[in-house]
């Protein structure tokens, strides 16, 4: 089929117009959004988004962030089996504030009555004074937004991670909780077709609220085996809060030590529980020393470190070392 030249020209014309209006719109939406009249904005608004909807509603546009949040412990703060157990089937009044918060504002929140299954969700963390609070000064047609510098600050997380926040503050380390637990990568805030073409790329924080890894560079191990003594030390060199750290959870490191004689038989053993609830965590920058008196002839010690998160009874192996005399 042959397209008449006039139609081609027309198509090219429309194409150019579409592209230039898209460029114009892109420019206005991303750079000069104050030009958009209020009345026009009202048309684009979805008032239901201001009715504290469930996280799924936000995922219509913020799909990637939603999927990440779904993977996070925050989405499970109310439905977590270990929480249900510890809170006596969720009846303990004192526990509600941080596990089903109404709204996070830099101090201990108050609990909410609705949508409890959502745990700590988008609305808890972003909806204040009828606006979506966030790190950016931007224009979101569907809902009002406001830039709030608190979102980059540790204090925000400290609303609930009270003890961890205090520990972090005392270290004077500059990296914030977000720097390590919500690392930022370039991407789009929204995935909804159309919207994603109209809004520029920005840095997006990882809403999986990553747990963080413990490596041999973070926890330095030293040990010495002599005739009468085994001495072991652990130093939390890089993590600016206790390891592990907790508020009401009970994460632990288990340190198992086995002593062997020349023939390779186990002659004795010892165990340490390194846990914030027992005030035996590894503080930042302070070497913790463990001494064991040996009663038998020992030629080798085996040290194993395991980690048990707050929300499970299962341990994962971190490392194992053998120390010879």
């Amino acid at each position: 089929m042959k397209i008449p030249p006039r139609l081609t020209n027309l198509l090219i014309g429309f194409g150019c117009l579409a592209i230039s209006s898209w460029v114009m719109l892109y420019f206005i939406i991303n750079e000069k959004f104050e030009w958009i009249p209020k009345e026009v904005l009202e048309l684009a608004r979805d008032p239901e988004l201001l009715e504290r909807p469930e996280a799924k509603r936000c995922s219509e546009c913020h799909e990637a962030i939603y999927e990440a949040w779904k993977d996070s412990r925050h989405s499970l703060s109310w439905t977590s089996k270990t929480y249900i157990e510890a809170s006596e089937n969720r009846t303990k009044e004192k526990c509600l504030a941080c596990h089903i918060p109404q709204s996070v504002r830099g101090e201990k929140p108050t609990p909410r009555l609705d949508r409890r299954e959502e745990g700590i969700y988008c609305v808890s963390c972003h909806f204040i004074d009828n606006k979506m609070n966030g790190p950016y000064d931007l224009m979101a047609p569907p809902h009002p937004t406001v830039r709030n510098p608190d979102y980059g600050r540790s204090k925000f997380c400290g609303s609930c991670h009270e003890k961890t926040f205090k520990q972090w503050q005392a270290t004077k380390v500059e990296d914030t909780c977000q720097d390590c637990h919500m690392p930022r990568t370039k991407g789009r805030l929204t995935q909804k077709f159309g919207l994603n073409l109209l809004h520029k790329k920005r840095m997006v924080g990882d809403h999986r609220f990553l747990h963080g890894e413990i490596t041999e560079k973070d926890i330095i191990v030293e040990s010495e085996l002599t005739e009468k003594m085994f001495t072991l030390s652990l130093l939390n060199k890089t993590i600016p809060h206790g390891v592990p750290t907790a508020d009401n959870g009970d994460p632990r490191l288990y340190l198992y030590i086995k002593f062997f004689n020349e023939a390779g038989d186990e002659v004795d053993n010892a165990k340490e529980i390194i846990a914030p609830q027992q005030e035996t965590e590894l503080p930042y920058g302070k070497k913790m020393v463990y001494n064991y008196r040996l009663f038998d002839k020992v030629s080798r010690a085996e040290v194993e470190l395991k980690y048990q998160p707050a929300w499970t009874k299962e341990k994962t192996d971190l490392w194992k070392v053998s120390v010879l005399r």
Partner: protein
Amino acid sequence: MKTLKLILSLMMLTFLAVFPVQAKDMIVKEPPKSLSKFYPPESKEPKWIQQMHKMSAHFGGVFVNLKEKDFENVDKHADKLVEEYKKTSEMVPEWEEYFDIKAAEEFAAAAKTHDIGKAGKASGKLGKTCGKCHGDQEISVWTKFHWPSFHKIKVTDPIDEKEVEFGKYMKSISSSMKGVTVNFGEGQYDRAGKALKVFKTRYMELKSTCSKCHTTDDVKLFYVGKDADTAFSGLANELNAEKPNPGNFWKNVGLLGKTGCKNCHLVHRTYSFIKEAWEEEDKK
């Protein structure tokens, strides 16, 4: 406003002192299920307590204003008291009998004569209805709604890493303590030393249970804090010494038993006991 609140709360306190609880033969019965609606988690706020504060504030308000001769407010508080009293009487059907609406209305009428003597006299009958219910029910309500249950707490025994119920764990703490003292008594110091390690590990594990009910770490200054640490190091020092000194050993055992076990039992076990009795009854 602040001073007003202060006066009102003082009134509240004197009020409670004037209508003392008569509780020679006390019965601690589980409160009716219908009360649960007014406590978390079913209700966002402890509505029953708020209702109590309202009544108490209006009751006190009548007398404060009578003294200040602010009669307009005397009348207001009197009416409000009747209104809130009626409302409270409808909240828990099983407790309806505790209320005497006529006594409340008579008190309001007496208050409205603006004669402080008459008001005082009429308050007695109404006040008794408050006192009677408090005497019968307050401890039960505290136990039910302010005390979590120890029976539902599980502890992972740090020695064999098995989960056991709290009461059972207590028994194993108790027997590991005996492991230390019995061996010491027999002069088996090395064995006592090994048993002490087990005992200490088990005892310190209790520290992890506090956060299941308490949300501040300050409570850990008690029972499982410095005193316990000192007692344990005292015991270890004796057992590591060339010639252990029994005086020092038993002193530290006593310290631990008192500031650790006993004091914690005095604070926590009474309620645990009552709850257990209710739970047994519910099972029947």
